[in-house]
């Protein structure tokens, strides 16, 4: 359930599902493999793990409909996977391979799979919030019934675009859901050290006329319930919702960051609240057999390994593509 809310609705019933656990596990294993590639200097540029934040991704994706759209941050592997982007295409993109979802032009920071409604991970902090408004406006004008979901970090709440976007979404009553994944740290500094309010997104939503909830982002059930309420509001034409999900990244800002700026007891406390074992325990308590869970985990292990094998077998992006796709006609010329 939500910790705090400016909404009055109660949550829809959420059933425990093995596939939801498997999806969190898929993200976890994918990121472990990605981290290994990064530490071996096989990725192009930095990668930013969301390990520990999987419940937020999976909880929102569970409530989506096919026509919905999603935008997120560069810490977006989990969102990309839960929204249906192919594992191999994502990994190839991070390793600069020709079969990457963006042909190697985006890299880890700019994963995109439009055919799955995944309209990009954005690496300029906060930039995606105003863009999500446009996607939501487009859904409304085209009558698709779609909702735009926009993930951002706690660090994004101090940038002007956050405030500009919330206000406009409320004024235009847009079908958009803003989701702050508050993992406590911007890069190396805590958000609370440089922010005047306790809850950086939740506390400011009201100032922009956006109903908000503050939830436990490591509790998949709570996430799904809050997401369901927000999607329902958006689809009913009742406008935007902001959800601040408290969570924690188990690793540093980017690969190679040992995150020594974090107190050991804080890390320990959050590791004890890891969403995967927590949900696994719920499944077991709910009667799902250990063998079934282990079998699902093995299937995911195999799936990720296959994606990695496919990635390693793929060629590096061909320099011949560099001049393609600047313009709609496929070219990149500026003069004639």
């Amino acid at each position: 359930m939500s910790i705090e809310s400016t909404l009055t609705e109660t949550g829809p019933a959420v059933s425990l599902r093995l596939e939801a656990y498997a999806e969190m596990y898929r993200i976890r294993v994918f990121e472990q493999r990605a981290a290994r590639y990064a530490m071996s200097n096989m990725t192009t540029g930095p990668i930013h793990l969301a390990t520990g934040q999987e419940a937020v991704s999976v909880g929102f994706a569970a409530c989506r409909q096919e026509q919905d759209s999603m935008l997120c941050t560069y810490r977006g592997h989990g969102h990309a996977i839960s929204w249906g982007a192919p594992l191999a295409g994502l990994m190839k993109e991070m390793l600069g391979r020709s079969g990457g979802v963006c042909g190697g032009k985006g890299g880890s920071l700019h994963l995109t799979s439009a055919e799955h409604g995944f309209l990009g991970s954005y690496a300029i902090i906060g930039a995606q919030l105003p863009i999500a408004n446009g996607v939501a406006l487009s859904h409304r004008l085209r009558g698709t019934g779609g909702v735009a979901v926009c993930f951002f970090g706690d660090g994004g709440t101090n940038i002007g675009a956050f405030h500009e976007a919330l206000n406009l979404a409320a004024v235009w009553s847009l079908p958009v859901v803003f989701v702050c994944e508050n993992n406590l740290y911007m890069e190396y500094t805590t958000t609370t050290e440089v922010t005047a309010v306790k809850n950086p997104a939740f506390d400011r939503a009201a100032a922009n006329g956006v109903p908000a909830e503050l939830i436990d982002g490591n509790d998949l059930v709570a996430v799904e319930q809050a997401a369901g309420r927000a999607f329902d509001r958006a689809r009913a034409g009742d406008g935007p919702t902001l959800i601040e999900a408290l969570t924690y990244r188990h690793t540093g800002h980017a690969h190679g960051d040992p995150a020594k700026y974090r107190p050991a007891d804080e890390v320990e406390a959050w590791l004890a609240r890891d969403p995967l074992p927590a949900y696994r325990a719920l499944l077991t308590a709910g009667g799902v057999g250990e063998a079934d869970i282990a079998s699902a985990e093995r299937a995911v292990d195999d799936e990720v390994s296959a994606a990695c094998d496919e990635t390693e077998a793929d060629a590096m992006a061909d320099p011949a593509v560099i001049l393609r796709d600047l313009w709609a006609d496929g070219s990149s010329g500026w003069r004639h």
Partner: protein
Amino acid sequence: MATLTYRNAAAAGLRQEMLRDESVILLGEDVAKAGGVFKTSRGLYDEFGAQRVFDTPIAEQAILGAALGAAMTGMRPVAEIMFADFLAVCWDYVVNEIPKARYMTAGQFGAPLVIRAANGAGIGFGPQHSQAVETWAMTVPGLKIVSPSTPADMKGLMAAAIRDDDPVLVLESKALLATKGEVPDGELVIPLGQAAVRRTGQDLTIAALGSTVPTAQAAAAELAAQDIDATVIDLRSVVPLDAGTVLASVAETGRLVVVEEAPAQLGWGASVASLVGEEAFGSLRAPVRRVCTANVPVPGSRRLEERYLPEVHHVVDAAVATVSYVHRSFVDSKG
């Protein structure tokens, strides 16, 4: 033919495309009920209503972000940034988001949108409301940059910009807003990247853009009185750049003067001069000259602003110097 002001031609171009394509929407500060602070969207809200024409808060990032998101997903937004100077407030969208959307997704989606903005000096708005920003935008691959110089071009280029599948920045010269001109009746679309030769002469080529086109034309008239016959090329857009028309003209005249509303330290004219130097060197009979603004912010006082801008006599002087130029080594060898 109808006689329209430049500002009314902007609205006419928008109206033509909004009638044709219902995915075209207009958003910006004061663009709906007020018809735009420069009256360049007058009548559109009344005709097309609140689902096509949107007043926004003073929040330029929200405006361009919304335009991009809508463009990525099937709409054709026209986003107005009131003064081109304000593009600095939403520069992330101008340089990081909009022009890269197609490229960094390998064409998964594009950004078929128009950013329109009142551009340049000439009506005394001072240092932060008078800059001509073609060169700012030109530093980033992925934006088309259009600067109409006549009412007919305003209508036809606006239409082409809206139909274009790539992001286009349409810079509307504040100095030209009240100017009038003949605009053909019926549908008018002028393809992007086709320069207009406004005058043909054999002695030198003058390349101009937007607000500097009338300056170049007035200079050409004065030069004619001195028996110097100039070609005046209105580039219309700097991306795509119709280099072919410039190079062909320089091949005939052997001389080029570029007249640009931009400081000398970096201007679109420097790119034009550079490619003429590289590709038409054998035709050149004199160094390419650039007539630029003063290399300072745009001053407020009317007389200071006039001095800031390239004036007709500056262009005449540059043209005369170019035409009378004699290569020193050539003189020496004649001994």
